[in-house]
Each structure stands twice: as structure tokens, then as C-alpha cells.
């Protein structure tokens, strides 16, 4: 019997339940660790414990659905310190558990950062994969000039907000009240999302079956290049050409039936296929 570990919060993340159900359906022995505010853990030189469970025994599959830190903060300095402690802890926690992990956390991308998308694109260009154009916008005039060249821009801010601009004529400074500088991407074209887990992938909101196949191939190639086993690739389809906008190293918490169906199917196929 295969042993699986799911670390995540059932209350806020419906995907945890989907994973547990799918794993039990293929007779996996599942241990769920809730990483909500009551989560208590220890990592020592040799052992790792959480919620009273001894986790050293190797799991065949480990699903990391740790999406938020249980941080109780008083001010910005406190937030910075506590966040760094949790990030450090989670990386070490998963390293000590071992097993095949979806996904193993890295300090650099644990909760994402404004420029992670740029790091992803930079790395993918090194592998020769097509990526969306990126730059930094420094002012409203800069935004307008860039928009006239790119036609459609997404800007991302320090707090994670994303704004899309697509009409240079109608643009005015009062409608773009964000702080400069801001990261911007050329998002001309149709957004294609590909959800993937290992070799299993499915496109969501894609234009045609032909581009589906191409999108899936590009998404899997991008994920493998980055060493990400499970997540969502955001691609752009513009005049028949595909490029990578971003690869998220996790599947966002969702109640969408098609996402849950994909996860169930991927897990079942993966276990049956000998994962």
C-alpha cells in the first residue's frame, strides 16, 4: 500500500479534500496534516514531527498545499521577521520529510514575490523557450508609451495586485493610480492556462484543440526546465504563436469542478501508473 502525506488547510483549501479523496480511492494510506493556526511542528537533527505525528517514515507521495503562513504580526518589521522564520521552517520541514514532493518548497518562491515571473521568464529563455516581453514602467508617460507599442500590458505590484491596460487612447493618469516603478508584461493575445501534475496536463480556456496540444507541450517543457512538478502555466497565444507568461509552482486554491476533476484524475493515474 502506498503512503501519502497531504499538508494543507482543509478549511481554506478545497484542493486538500480532493487530493485526500483521490488518494483514498486508489487505496493509498493518507496522512493529512493541517497547517492552520494550530499547526505545531519540530525538526531535529534526525527527526521531524507535526501535530503529534512522527513523519520520518518515507512517504511515496507528499502534497504540499501550504499556501499561507500562520503569521500573527504587529507591524511591518514583525511581519518581515516572522515571515522569514516561517519560510525557513517550511523549507527545512519538507526537506526532512523526503519522498516525492508536489512541490518541494524553495525559499525564493514560497509565497511568490513580485518579480518571480521575471525570474521564471529569464530562466526559460536560457532554455530557449519563448517568453513574454517584460520591463519596468517608471511613470505614467512610460506606461502610455509602452502601451502604444505593446497594445496590452499587465502590471504587477509589490502587494501582488495585477492591473491590465489595453486602450492607450482612454488611458488617464487618474485611472492608473499605482506606485511607480512597476513590473509590466506584454500580454497581447489570448491567455491560455495549463494545469499540470507530473506528466498529466490539461489546458483551460484554450482557443482550439491544435493549440491545446502545443500549449500542453510548451507548459510541460517549461515546468520541467524549472523543476516544478505541479502547478499552472500561464501562456499567451498571439497570432498562432505561443509564449510563456508565468509558471506558478502551485495550483491555486479553487472550487472549480474542472480543476478538481483534473487533480483527481491525475492523482489516480499517477498512483495506478506506479508513482
Amino acid at each position, binding site marked *: 500500500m502506498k503512503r501519502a502525506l497531504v499538508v494543507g488547510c482543509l478549511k481554506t483549501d478545497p484542493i486538500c479534500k480532493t487530493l485526500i479523496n483521490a488518494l483514498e480511492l486508489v487505496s493509498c494510506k493518507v496522512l493529512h496534516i493541517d497547517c492552520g493556526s494550530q*499547526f*505545531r*511542528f*519540530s*525538526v*531535529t*537533527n534526525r527527526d521531524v*514531527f507535526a501535530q503529534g505525528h512522527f513523519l520520518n517514515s518515507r512517504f511515496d507521495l507528499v502534497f504540499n498545499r501550504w499556501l499561507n503562513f500562520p*503569521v*500573527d504580526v504587529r507591524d511591518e518589521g514583525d511581519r*518581515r*521577521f*516572522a515571515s*522569514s*522564520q*516561517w*519560510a*525557513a*521552517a517550511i*523549507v*527545512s520541514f519538507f*526537506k*526532512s520529510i523526503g519522498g516525492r514532493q508536489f512541490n518541494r518548497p*524553495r*525559499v*525564493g*518562491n514560497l509565497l511568490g*514575490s*513580485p*518579480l518571480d515571473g*521575471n*525570474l521564471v*521568464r*529569464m*530562466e526559460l*529563455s*536560457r532554455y530557449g523557450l519563448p*517568453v513574454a516581453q*517584460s*520591463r*519596468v514602467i*517608471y511613470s505614467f508617460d512610460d506606461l502610455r508609451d509602452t502601451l502604444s507599442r505593446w497594445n496590452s500590458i499587465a502590471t504587477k*505590484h*509589490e502587494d501582488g495586485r495585477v492591473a491590465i491596460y489595453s486602450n492607450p487612447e482612454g488611458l488617464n493618469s487618474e485611472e492608473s493610480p499605482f*506606485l*511607480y*516603478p*512597476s*513590473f509590466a508584461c506584454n500580454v497581447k493575445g489570448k491567455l491560455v492556462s495549463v494545469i499540470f501534475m507530473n506528466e498529466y496536463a490539461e489546458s483551460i480556456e484554450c482557443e482550439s484543440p491544435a493549440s491545446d496540444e502545443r500549449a500542453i507541450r510548451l507548459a510541460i517543457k517549461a515546468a520541467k*526546465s*524549472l*523543476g516544478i512538478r505541479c502547478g499552472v502555466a500561464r501562456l499567451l497565444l498571439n497570432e498562432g504563436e505561443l509564449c510563456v507568461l508565468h509558471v506558478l509552482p502551485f495550483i491555486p486554491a479553487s472550487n472549480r469542478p474542472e480543476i478538481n476533476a483534473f487533480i483527481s484524475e491525475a492523482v489516480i493515474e499517477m498512483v495506478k501508473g506506479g508513482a
Partner: protein
Amino acid sequence: MTSVLVIGSLRDGPTKHTLQKLHQLGHEPKFLDMHRVYEHAQLKEIGQSKIVQDGSVSLDVTQFSSVYQRLMLEPSLVGESSQRSVVHFNILRHWLLDLHNHGKRIINPPFPDDANSSKMRQLTELAEFGLKIPSSIMTNDPEAAREFCRTNKATIYKSCSSERSIVSLTPPIDSDRFTLLSNAPTLFQSYIDGLNIRVHCVGEICFAEAIETNAVDYRYSDTNTHSAIKIPLDISKALKRYMKKRGLHLVGADFRLNPITGEWIILEVNTMPGYSGYDERANFAISNALIALLTSQSCLADRHFA
């Protein structure tokens, strides 16, 4: 002559020290001041930055063969982390990774999974290289921490990330402070009442200094005495293997010498070490080695972030 780029702040001791030493040895390094970049730069094209502009200075990055960087977002060095400084910090970090991937020598590359950012993970990695580590627990469980303190004669606690903290003796186990652990995990270690040893490794060369102190954390004491000490061969070999695996060229490793067994016990490895004070006491041997590495022509092994 090989050209060197230094990135940092003049308020930062090691940056200033390295620049001075480069000038003294007849080099003409370019300096990219983080303050100026954070305040004035326009670094627009990401991932293919060939030019770094900071308002008055334009740098063609292709002309540099090596970079010494102290890129950081410490509020004490760069002021409050405004959106502007965070954006520029990230661009420079990615630009350095890009240069590293194109074969430039970056001391050290700012890898996103910097080993020092998770101390417990770093310790387990160091143990895999044959280095002795202290008995440790990283936890947010007050009871587990108390149990660890009960079973060890004396313990210390410190930050488990690269955020700086003052290493202190753990308070008595009935202290209310243990309940605060649920907010932020903390690293506890058995206290080794031995000689502090700081080892700086620059490429293939290691320099060790013993620090005698009455303080738990010698960095915050002004009554320390220092002396050079010979580093055992197995320790320097293990450290160099670790550096090679991690793609590091300069580290500052902290050890304690167990007074009973004579073992060197490693506490942590700093991947952006503040080395200037140790260098002055070592008659500038560390900076000489660093500058030799920055200005040598040898090629580097590649290491990618994934």
C-alpha cells in the same frame, strides 16, 4: 586587466573595505552604489540587461568578468524598503543570476534558495558533508522546545532564517516566553562552551581565527581576544566540497571547538560574510585572496537556480 564590478553600499563595511583594497592593489573597479540605483536608476528591460544606468553612470555589463556583490535590502543600509528599492533589488538580483549563468564570476551568486536562509536545512546539508553539528531543534511547539531544553545541559536560541538575531541562552523552561513560539518558529541548539572559531574560505583557501570571549554571541562583545588557528584538513576539505556544491566562492563559517572532545562543531555558514574585521587582523590575507579570485581568468562551473 580583468575588470571588477562592486555592488553595495558605502555604509556597508565589507563593500567599502573591498573597494579600498582593490584600489590599493592597482585595480580600477567600477562601483554600483545601491542607494543611487534604488533612488535614481531606470533598469527597464528585464532578463537581457546589457546596460545598468544609475542616472549619471552607464555600465556596459559585458565588460566585467567578475562581480563582488553585497546586494541587500537591509533598512539600516538602504532606508525603508519602498516599492522602488524592492523593484530594483529584484532586477539587480536577477541580472546577477543572468550574468552568472553566462559564465561571469559572481561572489556570491544571489541564488533564490540561498542555503543560509534556512539554517536548519543548512545544518543538515553540512552534516551530509561530514561536518559535526550541534544537537538542534527548530520548532514552534512550546512543549517540544521545553523538552529539548530539559534534555540538554544548556541551550541557546536564535533566528532560523538569515534574518540576524542575537544568539542568547534560553530562558528557564517555566518562562512565559515559550508560548510566543507559536508565532514564529525558532532554532534551539545545545550550548557548546568552547572556543569560537571563524573560518573564511575564499575559493580554495581557508583562513581561521579563534575568538576568546565571555559572551554567548561574540559579535556583540568588545572584550574579545583573537588569534590565528590552524584549520584541520578534514574540516577545510568538507567546507570546500560544500561550497562547490552550492556554487559559492566566499563564505564565513562559524565553529565551536568542543573543549572535551577537541571536535570542531559547525554552527552555520554565512554566504555574504562581513569579513573586514577578520581581514585586518589577518594582515589582509582574506582580501588579497578575494581580489586574486575576482581578477583571475579561470573559468567557473555553472550552477542554475532550478
